[in-house]
């Protein structure tokens, strides 16, 4: 029987076809454009901003948005656009660190508990259940109150808070795959446990994992800006979107753009990443 006539072969060809080119959908395109702009602004913001983020100008206090100052100026006459650029950088840096930390822990713990099961698995699941049911910002507040404020502690506390969701997703994927035929064959061939875990199974869960990374990234952005807004996240000399919002609240009548600029930026980032994750989800369907 020629190979291309057997059903399995056709399936393989369909797979190859799909891998050849990404099937673009509107969510993916919109999400990529929105997040691309944000990442671009953040990277440019590291090296260059239109104005210094700290230089004050008494003559230009509360200037409305114009060509000179895209987003206007604040109560000290500082350029809001430049500060938003820096703020995006801070937010993205913190969220990336948080997701990297909780994602790595999620892969390690989820892989081991999912593959081996047993008592440890039971205990870990009960703990993650308990943490998951808890409002995330409250838990982060508790960790912060134990460790003290500051950027490093913010990353650690949010990292701990987001760990359970990653552990659960990775674990369920490992449980799904651990009894798959190709895994038992690999085991029969004498492949070591570590190699099975991280070379044979891990690459196959990435499509699910990336979606949860993006959702986690969004939650991290919301939590970071929320905590900075409350004054227990990023501390003053550093620009942060949440902190800018709480500063701007006192000047709502005189300078509504001061609050709108960082607020709409947060909405833009979150919307961009949720569109992106929706697009990736549709991609794998």
């Amino acid at each position, binding site marked *: 029987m020629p190979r291309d006539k057997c059903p399995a072969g056709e399936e393989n060809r369909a797979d190859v076809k799909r891998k050849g080119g990404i099937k673009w959908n509107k969510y993916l395109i919109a999400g990529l454009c929105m997040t691309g702009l944000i990442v671009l602004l953040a990277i440019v913001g590291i090296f260059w901003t239109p104005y210094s983020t700290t230089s004050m100008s008494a003559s230009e206090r509360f200037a409305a948005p114009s060509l000179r100052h895209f987003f206007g100026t604040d109560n000290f006459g500082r350029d809001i656009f430049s500060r938003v650029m820096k703020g995006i950088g801070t937010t993205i840096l913190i969220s990336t660190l948080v997701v990297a930390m909780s994602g790595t822990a999620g892969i390690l713990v989820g892989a081991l508990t999912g593959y081996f099961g047993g008592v440890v698995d039971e205990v870990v699941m009960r703990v993650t259940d*308990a943490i998951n*049911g*808890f*409002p*995330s*910002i*409250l838990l982060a*507040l*508790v960790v*912060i*109150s*134990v460790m003290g*404020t500051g950027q490093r502690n913010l990353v650690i506390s949010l990292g701990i808070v987001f760990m359970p969701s990653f552990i659960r997703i990775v674990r369920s994927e490992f449980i799904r795959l651990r009894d798959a035929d190709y895994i038992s064959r690999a085991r029969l061939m004498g492949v070591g446990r570590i190699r099975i875990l991280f070379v044979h199974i891990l690459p196959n869960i990435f499509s699910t994992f990336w979606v949860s990374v993006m959702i986690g990234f969004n939650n991290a952005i*919301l939590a970071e*800006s*929320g905590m900075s*807004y*409350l*004054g*227990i996240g990023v501390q003053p000399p550093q620009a942060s979107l*949440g902190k800018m*919002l709480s500063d*701007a*609240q006192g000047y*709502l*009548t005189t300078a*509504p753009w001061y*609050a709108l600029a960082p*607020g709409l930026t*947060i*909405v833009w980032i*979150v*919307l961009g990443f*949720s*569109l992106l994750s929706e697009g990736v989800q549709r991609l794998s369907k």
Partner: protein
Amino acid sequence: MKYLSKKIVTLIMTLFVVSAAAFIAFQIIPGDVVTSILGTEATPEREAQLREELGLNDPPVARYFRWAGGVLMGDLGISYRYAKNMNEMMPVAELIGDKLPVTLSLAAISLVLIVAVSIPLGVLWARSRNKVLDAALGVITQTTMAIPSFFLGIIVTYLFGMVFKCFVPGGYVSYEKDIKGFLFYLLFPALAIALPKAAMTARFLRGSLLTELRADYVRTARSKGCGERRVMYGHVLRNAMMPVITFLGMIIAEIVAGSIVVEQVFSLPGIGRLLISSISTRDLPVVEILILYITFVVIFVYFLVDILYRVVDPRISGK
């Protein structure tokens, strides 16, 4: 009922673990309580006296059980920061007492708003044959979901407080003085909490409705001559509400978390603001009690949702 008793045991166990964890966590915090109350200038005698008064000389396990026992008996301990007057310290119970109704009312109004907005919206959306409306609702809900509640709070303050002048921002009235004014003022922060969650719930309900509409019993109902309205409200909605109830139960935790932040935006004297200020001033007895309390509320709501689930759908009985 075996199922119920098992659930109650789990509830108590969880509370025990959380209370122990909260207690231990605050034991390992650097910094001495006595120094933080009296300052560094106090005499050693006064320090020793206070240490004895607060019972800090006992072993931690004994202190935990005394604290937990006190909480069970209604004695929530004393605040390190707030004082009633020069000689008397502020009991945590009194401190929390008048703040609790504010947060609970805020959460309740938010929940009512979420249900009132999301269910009609979800039904309308699932029924719409209009492509433009369908797409518009998709964009609107997706965008609303992306707005953090504190930013929405600021927008609400600006729009309703400063442009339309519906309410006076910061003009909070106590529920003891004017219950109507109190509820009216809470409507705006509740809006800030509810809108993103309502958008989420509406999307969820729509998905659930669309799945149900493809079920066999819908075709049967239609072929028996059931009108669209009857099919939707008499048959489909009830079944589609099942996952939505679970979803709403999960959202309650988010509402509580949202109210912590939104209280700050609207300067409401609720437990959220107390929690934030207690964390920044390291008033640990207050923080411990608040955490325990919020945990209790969240777990208790999950418990209620579980029971409600069984009431709505009698097919589910203890598995």
